[in-house]
């Protein structure tokens, strides 16, 4: 028997696992007829999910937390039992602005701390407060940008203007001079570089080596009423994710994503993020960033509760939500490792033994406790060396100056 399932997505390279699940038969093999609904704004993706037009969505992890906490229009309890990817963002700035930064782009990207300080100095030289596009207030991109800027003493609410616009409008807005740069998921940064409008200034993978990005979000009630469908889908997605991670499939995957029904951008631009070959300045040789975007390896899909809580800590830090124990519990409960474990109990996917971990504590690949198979976690350091202990959020928050 086949079950129909509608999933909303935005035209982004990191919708890859959903597209592969549909186009390469992984969903069908689990008895799921996947209908992918292309959406051009996060607001509409959220509404389609919250009001039940779709059963699941390719969602910014912080937005899933925010909707559950009632911070983004109609509150709704969401459940994220699966991470669609880790990493994949890039900050690009107009070439004039980037001229004030380290000219060697490989060195610039490799040293986010130095670049943050150069960026802080460049703000004063710029003709106005730099206007930086972010895809949503509750996006990993905005949170990462704030984290990075603040490390160099830049107040993201005072010293720059953050302008919200969806990824597909970023390149046009740069062309029109409405923004001086933006941080977005691929292929939009690469598209701006390729058009000669911008240069890469920072890549997500260097700010947080394993940064939480998109999740698969359900309405919690729906997920609980339909456990079999959820489990089938998750099994299909882990297979699709392994397929997406395999370099042998990158050209095929880039071709699939390039279709008008999905990302609708040239396949060679899309391939850059998949293969980790990032062109930081138009016409230059690509810079190898093998961890630019992860789908399967290192148990990428596993929804660590500690990552939901890291997101929460950043929402508190920037005054978007008040810190209290009830809210901590609610935010942490958005990520559902219990569902992931149930769905993949009989599979060969390496399963972490714990549901929380220290975030930012792994410097070198580390073998960890796993219920099955071998599991090695990749380095997950933050560029500033901080470690997030989900049991000690207060201390973590107090460590930021000025505490906010």
């Amino acid at each position, binding site marked *: 028997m086949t079950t129909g399932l509608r999933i909303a997505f935005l035209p982004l390279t990191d919708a890859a696992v959903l597209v592969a699940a549909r186009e390469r038969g992984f969903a069908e093999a689990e008895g799921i007829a996947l209908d992918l609904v292309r959406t051009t704004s996060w*607001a*509409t993706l959220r*509404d*389609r999910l919250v*009001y039940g037009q779709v059963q699941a969505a390719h969602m910014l992890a912080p937005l899933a937390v925010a909707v559950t906490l009632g911070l983004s229009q*109609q509150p709704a309890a969401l459940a994220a039992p699966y991470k669609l990817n880790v990493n994949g963002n890039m900050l690009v700035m107009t070439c004039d602005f980037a001229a004030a930064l380290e000219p060697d782009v490989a060195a610039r990207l490799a040293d986010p701390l130095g670049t943050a300080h150069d960026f802080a100095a460049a703000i004063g030289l710029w003709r106005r407060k730099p206007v930086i596009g972010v895809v949503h*207030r509750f996006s990993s991109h905005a949170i990462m940008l704030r984290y990075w800027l603040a490390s160099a003493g830049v107040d993201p609410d005072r010293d720059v203007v953050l*302008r919200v*616009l969806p990824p597909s409008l970023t390149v046009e807005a740069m062309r029109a001079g409405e923004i001086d740069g933006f941080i977005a998921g691929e292929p939009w940064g690469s598209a701006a570089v390729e058009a000669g409008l911008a240069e890469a200034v920072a890549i997500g993978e260097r700010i947080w080596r394993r940064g939480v990005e998109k999740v698969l979000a359900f309405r919690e009630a729906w997920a609980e009423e339909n456990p079999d469908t959820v489990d089938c889908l998750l099994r299909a997605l882990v297979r699709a994710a392994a397929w997406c991670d395999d370099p042998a499939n990158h050209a095929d995957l880039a071709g699939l994503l390039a279709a008008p029904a999905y990302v609708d951008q040239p396949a060679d631009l899309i391939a850059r993020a998949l293969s980790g070959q990032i062109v930081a300045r138009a016409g230059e040789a690509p810079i190898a960033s093998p961890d630019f975007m992860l789908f399967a390896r290192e148990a990428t899909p596993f929804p660590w509760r500690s990552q939901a809580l890291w997101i929460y800590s950043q929402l508190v830090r920037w005054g978007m939500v008040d810190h209290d124990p009830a809210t901590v519990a609610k935010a942490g409960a958005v990520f559902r490792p219990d569902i992931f474990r149930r769905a993949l109990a009989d599979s060969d996917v390496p399963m972490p033994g714990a549901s929380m971990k220290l975030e930012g504590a792994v410097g070198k690949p580390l073998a960890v406790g796993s219920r099955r198979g071998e599991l090695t976690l990749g380095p997950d350091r933050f560029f500033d060396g901080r470690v997030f202990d989900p049991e000690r959020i207060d201390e973590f928050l107090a460590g930021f100056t000025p505490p906010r």
Partner: protein
Amino acid sequence: MRIVIIDDSGLRATVLEEGLREAGYDDIHIVPPRGAFVARLERMAPDVVLMDLGSPSRDTLEEMLIVSRALAKPIAMFVDQSDDAMIGAAIDAGVSAYVVDGLRKERVKPVLELAVRRFNAFAKMQSELDEARTALSDRKIIDRAKSILMNQRSLSEQDAYALLRSAAMNQGKKIVEVAQALITASDLLGGGV
């Protein structure tokens, strides 16, 4: 009640505006979501904002609703969360509506219902237009295939059409598909008309 329509499609906005005026609303403004549209909207201090659900500019609008100091009252999507049927109809029709806090739902509901009806009518009109366009181009393809047959096999127009139709029936295809195949084959063989 001041109503602002944010819309890329000038035609849909006009269709909606006309409907609202006929229903007696007269404080209506249309703002295309380009450039500094958010600042314009802020100055207008609307009571209701109607926007296409498919517009990529919704995230920009929602951000403004959160951070604006100029708007005296908060604006949220859909006034009455208990009215599931209404919300469902609005989302199906592709309408998103933002309403100032404190506006009574009896006052907003007719506006929303009207927007849903007009959006649906517009979508129907557009799909009919698309169908008409497709029909027109199908017609042209079939005509070209007919003239190839008429020239190469000295058939009358009626017989050429009958031949296309029977080939389509035999192969379980549409006439236009058979016609297209014939044109392609004829082009490849250098026998184009």
